[in-house]
């Protein structure tokens, strides 16, 4: 099997896993199952990033999302497990409205994809690796990089403040 066929196989496999896990996540009655499906989808996203030669981002995705975020989601599901959300109201009258919004969103999206399909080159050139990414982050994009660290700190402090037990 050549490299071409291998990459198509991996892409198709991960695309199917992502779409399947997303749908299962939304339709699952049990929120722990939802969290597991979410982890599956996020893992496949990491695989797709690796397929796009973004090794560093694939690892980030693996550690932060498939690892930390999934654990936090499971914690919150456990802590709020006494909360009953009626499933009949899970898929309800707003569904048609949501589908209408989705279609309204899809039309310009399809249009843009068509334009891109004509304009984009078929053979993509591999971008630089982790070294170039680090250089870009610490030179050209150093201001947004620092601001994003401040955002993370603020979110951390805010989350602890909000979630602490009121004494």
């Amino acid at each position, binding site marked *: 099997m050549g490299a*071409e066929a291998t*990459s198509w196989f991996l892409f198709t496999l991960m*695309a199917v896993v*992502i*779409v399947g896990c*997303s749908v299962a*996540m*939304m339709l699952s009655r049990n*929120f722990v199952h*939802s969290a597991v499906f*979410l982890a599956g*989808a*996020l893992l496949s*996203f990491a695989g*797709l990033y690796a*397929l*796009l*030669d*973004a090794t*560093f*981002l694939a690892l*980030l*995705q693996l550690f932060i999302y498939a690892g930390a*975020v999934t654990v936090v*989601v499971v914690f*919150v*599901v456990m*802590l*709020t497990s006494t*909360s*009953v*959300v009626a499933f009949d*109201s899970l898929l309800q009258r*707003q569904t048609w*409205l*949501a589908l209408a*919004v*989705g279609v309204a*969103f*899809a039309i310009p*999206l*399809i249009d843009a994809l068509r334009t*891109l399909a004509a304009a*984009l080159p078929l*053979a*993509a*050139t591999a*971008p630089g690796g982790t070294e170039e*990414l680090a*250089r*870009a*982050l610490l030179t050209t994009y150093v201001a947004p990089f620092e601001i994003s660290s401040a*955002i*993370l700190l603020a*979110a*951390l402090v*805010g*989350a602890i403040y*909000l*979630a602490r037990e009121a004494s």
Partner: protein
Amino acid sequence: MVPPIAFLILGAVVFLLAMIGFLTRRSLVQALMCLELMTSAVALTFLALGRALGDRSMTGMVFATFCMVISAAEIGMGLALVLLYFRKHGSTSTDDLDLMKG
């Protein structure tokens, strides 16, 4: 190689699916999970476009990185808010979110 447009189409499909899920789920936790999927799809689009345009300045990858940072901050804050709301009202259903204050 898989052409970049395939990644873009997949990103669009997942984004739309997650958006419909976000609008229809009645559970705050599931709505937040849908938000995670939406940001991951956007990061995938950034990466695919950056690769397709062959940018040596790494703009696509840098934007995908920021996308992940914001999404991590958002899920942390979001889940803390869900916990706080649950502690006050004993529910995580969006149907009960009908007060502007408290």
